[in-house]
Each structure stands twice: as structure tokens, then as C-alpha cells.
């Protein structure tokens, strides 16, 4: 019997999204527990899926029991299942965190917020689990529409930032749809596995080349790969803090997943490497992203905007791993999808907690935070160490594999880029930590102000998710060898 978990993990958030409206109108307070139940069930389903994939191999789930090229098929292999668990776990953690932050920032809109929140998660999961090109587009649009709305309800500049995101996101989705159309015209199929079989005969066709170009640009826009990232900093700066914490780790990573899926399992790796030099171009774009993101982050005074630019740089790491197109590089890229999700989750959660308590997020205003919010700031430091890449945090291991991959490919420029970016990150985070931990001399000498500082730690419902994310960073660092040997080595396409 085919396990039902692949379809359940998408349908459960979907059904509960419908349920939040009637229950929310009856009792507003019910939305939060409903969301938690939905995402917990979805997370369990994704764990079951991963377990099934590890023990029995790839799952093929025929929706409506129509066989693949005619009907829609869910295909879950190691790569899918891995990303599914990340998406459902991160969204569960953000949901736990959301309670106080939503009550403070959006008191009027709790019901609709949780409904769209669940739809967003369902959309992201649907993108990851599907094996059909057009079905992917439909779920991409669900996730995008929910994302535009969630960003638009943020602070002052949010609607305009969201509008820009909508324009770029729609261009991306339309380009993706055009790519699907071009592949359909030249093959007659929409199923990924079927396309994989048919396409090799058509690699010389100009239609297929153009389709591939449109896929890359469309997905590049969605995952905010430099120089297509222009919508990202504004959107994630002005969004409500819960939404930034949900979208920043997930939306870009799901985009990266779609890119890996299209490059290596719809097209064959040799198409992207030998026939047209996509991986080389991608590698250089990624190197640009890493340096540009880090340098721009240095120039920011707003902590949240700084994190948004760091995210641009982190997307570059994943793209660089894909661009290296060898086993170590791809291992690094896939491992970085996990690590970066947790690093970004922890960082954005911490910023949200700081804003919840003090309403401030200018880097220069962070003074005395280590005394007011000791646990939160400790979490921030650990996440920062991970972004810099210091063992035993998980960030070290994915960078290690990326550097190994770059050495394997004899791309010394990329090795240099990776090392320089680590240095830039050290400066970046030292600046923040200096403001938060070191006290200015004159006030220190006065001594009077020290007494006034009391511990104002974030509420428990916010602190626990922050600690979970931080624990994740440490645990995945320690277990990274095991994660690679049980999941990731099978997730890397066979021919590498």
C-alpha cells in the first residue's frame, strides 16, 4: 500500500486553513491552537514520509489513481523528503513563536493572518512534494499570493515593498509558466519523470534551450539570486516579524530546491554542464551574490535590513554549491538548505523578540541587551557564529563542503570568495555584538545606569522557539556527518 503521508502533509494545512475562518469568527483565540495542531500533524506526516523514503526508497503517489503522464503524481525522493521536513518544522517553530508577536503587531487581523499563514505553508509544501510541472506552478502561486498579503500587512513601507515583490514575483511565475509551455510544446508532457525521459533527444532544440533560460530566470527571481534580488531587502525588512521569520528561511530555500530539481532531475546534469555553461554562469552569479550581500549588509544600520542582505549572501552559497556541479559542492548546497533555514530562523526570531520588547532595531540602539535579554542574545551569538562558519555550529560544515567542492573543481576564485565572505561576516556580526555586549566607557564609569537595567527576557512562547532554533544549529552541526550519510548522499543526483 502506498503511504498516504505525502498528500496528507499538504492537505492538512489546507483543510485547517479553511477551518480557521469559522472557528476564528466564533472564538478568536482558537486560531492559534488550530494552526499549531495543523502544523504539528503536517510535521509528523513529513517525518513519516522521510522515514518511508529512507527505508523503502522513492515514493510515487498517484493523485486520483491516474497513472503519471496523464494524471498528477507526487514523487518524493531523498531531496524532497529532506526539504519537506525542514519546511514543516520551521513553520511549526514560527507558528509557536507567532502568538505574542501577532497579538502585538496585528491585533485586528488574527483570524485572517492564521488562515493565510496556513495557506502559505501548504503552498510551500505543495511546491516541494509535487512531480508535475504545472502543479508546481499552481502551488507556487498559492505560496506567492499568501506571501504578498503577509508582507503587505507589515509596518509603514510594507504595502509598497509588497507591491514591488508582487511585480517581480509575477514576472518570475509567468516566466516559469512560459518555460512549462515551451517544454509542453516540444514534448507534450508535463510530468517531470516523463520529461526526463523524453528531453535528451531534444537537447539541440532551440525551444528547449529557451525554456531552460526562462526556468532559470523565473526561479532565480523567486529565490532572490543576485542580481534578481532587488525585491528582497525591502520586503523582508518591512514585513511583520513573524512573517519575516517564516518567509526568509523558507521561500528562498524552496526556490533553491526548485532550481536543483529542474537542473538535475528534469534536465540531465550534462545538459547544464556541457551543452550550455549554466553551472559556470550560476557559480559566478553566486559569487557575486555572496560578496554583494555581505558588503551591502555592512552598510546597513537597521538590524533587520542587515539580515535581509545576509540572506541574499546565503542564497549565494546554495547557488554556488549547485554551480560547482560536483558531489562535494552539491552536498554542501543541500546541507546549506538545512543549515541556513535554521540560521535565518534563529536570527529573524531574535530580531522579532528584540522588537517585541523594545520596539527598536537600529544596531546602535541595542545597548545593554545582553543583560536585558541574556538568552536571546546568546542565541543571536550562536547563530552569528554559525553564519561566520565556526565549528561546531552547523554553518561550518556546509561551508567546509562548499570549499571542498570548489577545490575539487579547481575554482580557486570561489575558494577565495568563500573565505573573504567569512571575514566580512566576522566584521558584520562583531559590530552588532559590540553594541549589544560592550558598554560605553562614560556610562560604565558613572555606574548609576547599571542599576536601572533589569532582565526583560522575551516571553516564553517566543523564547522557546528561539532556543529550539539555536539548539538546531548546534545539533545539526554535531550530527552533520550522520545527516549526510543517511539522507543527503542519496539526495545528490546519481551521476555525480
Amino acid at each position, binding site marked *: 500500500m502506498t503511504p498516504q503521508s505525502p498528500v496528507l502533509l499538504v492537505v492538512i494545512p489546507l483543510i485547517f486553513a479553511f477551518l480557521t475562518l469559522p472557528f476564528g469568527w466564533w472564538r478568536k483565540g482558537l486560531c492559534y491552537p488550530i494552526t499549531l495542531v495543523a502544523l504539528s500533524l503536517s510535521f509528523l506526516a513529513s517525518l513519516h514520509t522521510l522515514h518511508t523514503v529512507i527505508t523503502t526508497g522513492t515514493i510515487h503517489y498517484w493523485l486520483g489513481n491516474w497513472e503519471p503522464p496523464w494524471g498528477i503524481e507526487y514523487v518524493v525522493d531523498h531531496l524532497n523528503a529532506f526539504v519537506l521536513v525542514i519546511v514543516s518544522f520551521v513553520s511549526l517553530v514560527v507558528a509557536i513563536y507567532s502568538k505574542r508577536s501577532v497579538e502585538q503587531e496585528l491585533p485586528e487581523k488574527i483570524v485572517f493572518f492564521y488562515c493565510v499563514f496556513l495557506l502559505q505553508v501548504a503552498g510551500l509544501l505543495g511546491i516541494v512534494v509535487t512531480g508535475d510541472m504545472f502543479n508546481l*506552478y499552481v502551488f507556487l502561486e498559492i505560496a506567492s499570493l499568501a506571501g*504578498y*498579503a503577509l508582507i503587505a500587512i507589515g509596518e509603514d*513601507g510594507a504595502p509598497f515593498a509588497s507591491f514591488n515583490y508582487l511585480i517581480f514575483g*509575477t514576472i518570475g511565475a509567468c516566466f516559469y509558466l512560459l518555460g512549462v509551455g515551451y517544454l*509542453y510544446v516540444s514534448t507534450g508532457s508535463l510530468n517531470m519523470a516523463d520529461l526526463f525521459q523524453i528531453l535528451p533527444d531534444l537537447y539541440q532544440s532551440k525551444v528547449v534551450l529557451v525554456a531552460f533560460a526562462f526556468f532559470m530566470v523565473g526561479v532565480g527571481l523567486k529565490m532572490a539570486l543576485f542580481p534578481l534580488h532587488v525585491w528582497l531587502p525591502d520586503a523582508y525588512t518591512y514585513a511583520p516579524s513573524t512573517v519575516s521569520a517564516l518567509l526568509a528561511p523558507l521561500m528562498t530555500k524552496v526556490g533553491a530546491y526548485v532550481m536543483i530539481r529542474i537542473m538535475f532531475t528534469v534536465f540531465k546534469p550534462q545538459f547544464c554542464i556541457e551543452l550550455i555553461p549554466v553551472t559556470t554562469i550560476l557559480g559566478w552569479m553566486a559569487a557575486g551574490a555572496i560578496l554583494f550581500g555581505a558588503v551591502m549588509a555592512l552598510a546597513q544600520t537597521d538590524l533587520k535590513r542587515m539580515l535581509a542582505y545576509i540572506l541574499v549572501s546565503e542564497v549565494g552559497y546554495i547557488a554556488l554549491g549547485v554551480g560547482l556541479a560536483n558531489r562535494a559542492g552539491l552536498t554542501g548546497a543541500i546541507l546549506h538548505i538545512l543549515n541556513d533555514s535554521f540560521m535565518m530562523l534563529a536570527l529573524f526570531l531574535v530580531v522579532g523578540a528584540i522588537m517585541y520588547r523594545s520596539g527598536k532595531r537600529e544596531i546602535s540602539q541595542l545597548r545593554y541587551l545582553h543583560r536585558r535579554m541574556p538568552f536571546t542574545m546568546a542565541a543571536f551569538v550562536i547563530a552569528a557564529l554559525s553564519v561566520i562558519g565556526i565549528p561546531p555550529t552547523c554553518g561550518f560544515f556546509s561551508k567546509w563542503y562548499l570549499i571542498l567542492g570548489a577545490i575539487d573543481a579547481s575554482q580557486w576564485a570561489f575558494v577565495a570568495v568563500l573565505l573573504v565572505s567569512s571575514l566580512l561576516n566576522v566584521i558584520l556580526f562583531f559590530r552588532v555584538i559590540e553594541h549589544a555586549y560592550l558598554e560605553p566607557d562614560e556610562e560604565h564609569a558613572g555606574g548609576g545606569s547599571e542599576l536601572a537595567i533589569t532582565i526583560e527576557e522575551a516571553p516564553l512562547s517566543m523564547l522557546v522557539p528561539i532556543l529550539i532554533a539555536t539548539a538546531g544549529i548546534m545539533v545539526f552541526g554535531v550530527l552533520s556527518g550522520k545527516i549526510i550519510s543517511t539522507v543527503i548522499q542519496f539526495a545528490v543526483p546519481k551521476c555525480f
Partner: protein
Amino acid sequence: MFDFILSKYNYWIYIILMMIGFYAMIGKKNLVKKIIGINIFQTAIILFFVSTAAKRGGTLPIVEHAHGHGIHHIHAASYVNPLPHVLMLTAIVVMVSTLGVALAIVIAIYRRYNTLEEDEILEQRK
């Protein structure tokens, strides 16, 4: 050459339409014009998909004499391809939804800045 242009005329029309829409999306300063651009772009894609469904000599995909004449053999070549039509029904719905959300965001922008011109909004944001 003339043959080449004529035999693929549906693609030329859709490419021109798509370029108009795309330019409106990224080149125009007025937010509503940008939204109109989105719609033209998506209409072009719909035109492209639907035009690929056509078959010379094919009629619309509703099986003739389906009831009461017993099962007879149906030739696929005598009906146009139904799949692009189905995909585009979904794409139209997506298009309408995007339009709705975009207009809602534009209303929120207008309430805040009292204008829909991009440069005036950027001026106010400084």
C-alpha cells in the same frame, strides 16, 4: 521565408503582446498601469497555450454522438488538444487572483501615500 512567418503567426502575435505587457510591468511609473501590464503579459501566455492546442481539421473537444450510439472508435486527430485549455482555465483563475491581491495592495498604498505614481511615493518615503 514568407511561409515561415505565416505558418507560425500565432507565436509572433503572442511575443508582441508579451513584450507590451512586460514593458508596462517594468517601465511604467503608475502602479495601476503596472497591473494592467501584468494582465497583458498573462493574456499573452494564455494566447500562446491555447494556440498550441489547435489542430488542422480538428473540432472542439466534445465527443460527438456520445450518447445512445454505442461505443465507437474516436480519432484523437479530429478533436483539438484539450490539455492546454484545461491548464489555461487554471491560469485564468490564478491571473484573476493576482489581479485581486495586487489591487488590494494598491488600495493600501493609496491610503498611505495618496498617490499611485511610483516616483511620488519614492519621494515621500525619503
